[in-house]
């Protein structure tokens, strides 16, 4: 872990933004207001992290972007979403994928009855660049996740949690996107795979110029790889800044990184488990 993203010069503010959210509001079921004016932007070629506690609205934000909200009876009632210079908030999810923005959903969502390989191939559904290219990319995925290659003919429904997670990430990569929305990619993965996934994120970012918006609980990891971070709480962005700055922030350090007063504390020593400081409320 010698070269960290944050050591590299951070993309200057002048670089164009690929995705921006302006003050969006999301309501579920016509009555439950979940996002209360969220604005954020992702620069082209950037890796941006959204951090926040459970229920803060990270997933909702990502779904609002990828237009999957409608399928859950949610809707964006206010604000606008612009992807690559186009308003996308009225677009169907597949149009968005065609334009190069794809989401890896929280909780895997593989096609249980399809084999791993078929799962990966459905990821290439919107592609029009021929079978050979798809084949090549498939091999690339297998190279990135050797475990998937072993299980390529198993029904995804029967594979282990981690294998499914890899499959979901691989499937999204198969669409050759310009931008990937990653929702908790590290959940349920063994440490070295988490590391690998973030390495892959960086590789895609560096080699293919793919932009990333990552919702992540593993703050440590996320801030290590991201260029910029947003912290959300109960439907609002409460703090944002360069990843580096966030890493240095005392509050973030204590509540998200677990390095109070300079050194890591043991989980055994956490005595009080009452809710502590919040930015809001």
């Amino acid at each position: 872990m010698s070269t960290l993203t944050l050591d590299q010069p951070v993309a200057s503010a002048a670089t164009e933004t690929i995705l921006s959210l302006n003050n969006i509001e999301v309501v579920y079921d016509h009555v439950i207001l979940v996002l209360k004016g969220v604005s954020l932007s992702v620069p082209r070629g950037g890796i941006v992290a959204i951090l926040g506690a459970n229920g803060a609205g990270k997933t909702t934000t990502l779904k609002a972007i990828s237009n999957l909200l409608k399928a859950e009876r949610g809707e964006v009632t206010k604000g606008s979403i612009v992807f690559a210079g186009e308003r996308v908030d009225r677009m169907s999810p597949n149009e968005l994928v065609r334009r190069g923005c794809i989401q890896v959903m929280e909780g895997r969502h593989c096609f249980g009855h399809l084999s791993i390989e078929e799962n990966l191939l459905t990821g290439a559904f919107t592609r029009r660049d021929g079978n050979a290219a798809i084949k090549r990319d498939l091999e690339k995925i297998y190279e990135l996740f050797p475990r998937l290659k072993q299980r390529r003919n198993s029904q995804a429904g029967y594979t282990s949690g981690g294998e499914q997670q890899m499959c979901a990430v691989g499937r999204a990569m198969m669409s050759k996107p310009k931008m990937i929305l990653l929702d908790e990619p590290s959940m349920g993965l063994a440490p070295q795979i988490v590391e690998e996934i973030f390495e892959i994120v960086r590789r895609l970012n560096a080699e293919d110029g793919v932009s990333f918006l990552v919702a992540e609980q593993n703050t440590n990891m996320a801030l290590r790889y991201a260029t910029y971070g947003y912290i959300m709480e109960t439907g609002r962005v409460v703090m944002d800044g360069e990843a580096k700055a966030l890493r240095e922030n005392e509050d973030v350090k204590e509540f998200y990184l677990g390095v109070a007063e300079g050194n890591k504390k043991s989980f055994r020593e956490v005595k009080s488990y009452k809710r502590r400081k919040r930015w809001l409320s």
Partner: protein
Amino acid sequence: MSDATLRPIAGINFNSFRVRAALILAAVLLLGIIGIRFDSSGTLHKIFVDPFDQMVSAPDLLVQTIWEGLVSGVLYALIALGFVLIFKASGVFNFAQGIMVVFAALTLVGLYEKGVPAFLAVILTLGVMFVLAVAIERVVLRPLVNQPDIILFMATFGITYFLIGLGETVFGGNPKQMITDQLHLPRGAIELKLFGGFVSLQKIDIAAAIIASLMIAVLAVFFQYTRIGRALRAVADSHKAALSVGISLNQIWVIVWFTAGIVALITGIMWGARSDVSFALEIVALKALPVLILGGFTSIPGAIIGGLIIGIGEKLGEFYWGPLIGGGIESWLAYFIALGFLLFRPQGLFGDKIIERI
């Protein structure tokens, strides 16, 4: 509750449901055979001996029964195929398939009655089915994306009602004759002299069997090996995930519902040629359910094999055993046959295994 486990003997695991069930079956058969020895004219004799005697003594009837079963099996399978298509591709249990069959046939005949030449009528009917597919996608499926199966199932009931109302308003309620001759479908029968009797094979039935097999083969290949086919199966698994990888549900649904509409039209022509075209046919569509279930909801070959098993099974059952309990058992035998198979394979003969993981 006895949870006592039995030790395996000679490698047979007595705790397996299948083995237990097979043992019970064997015991029943054995008892039956023993029983017959002691009462050669009684009930058991009627159940276990008489029917087989009949089969041997009038083989032409046996052949005819099997043929009848085969044909109705094929026709059930055609309806079931429509179900399977839609289920496989959208996870929707399309109750309206039966009505779509009637609707398509009615449209065809209705157009013909209005003076449209037969083949033009076929094309126009296809057009109507396409419009129907688009309309269903727009009005029903799109707003209901990602809802639980039962809700979509219910929505197809709505479609059923709507189509019945619409069909009767436009075409009237009286039964109509299928335009068999005008479509150059064969009429009449081939009569085979056989075993001193005769077996009559309707030409239209033969045509139905051939068309059905072709269609099923084509569709099976399409689903298993093409890009769209794979996408269709993906949609059936999870709408949400399919959306997220950029599969256009709208387009997929129009494709499948249109395909199902084509299948419905073909089915309608075949059924209509045997009886006439009216909403009474709707009831027959219910027979497709056991076929579908027996074959497994998602399997195209399953539809045809299920159809044959049910068709032949119910005809043999009705013909040889039905009279013992007053006849008319055909109305429920199919469901019991399907039930019997399901007890051994809960996902149907060819259905995808029900994934139970935690």
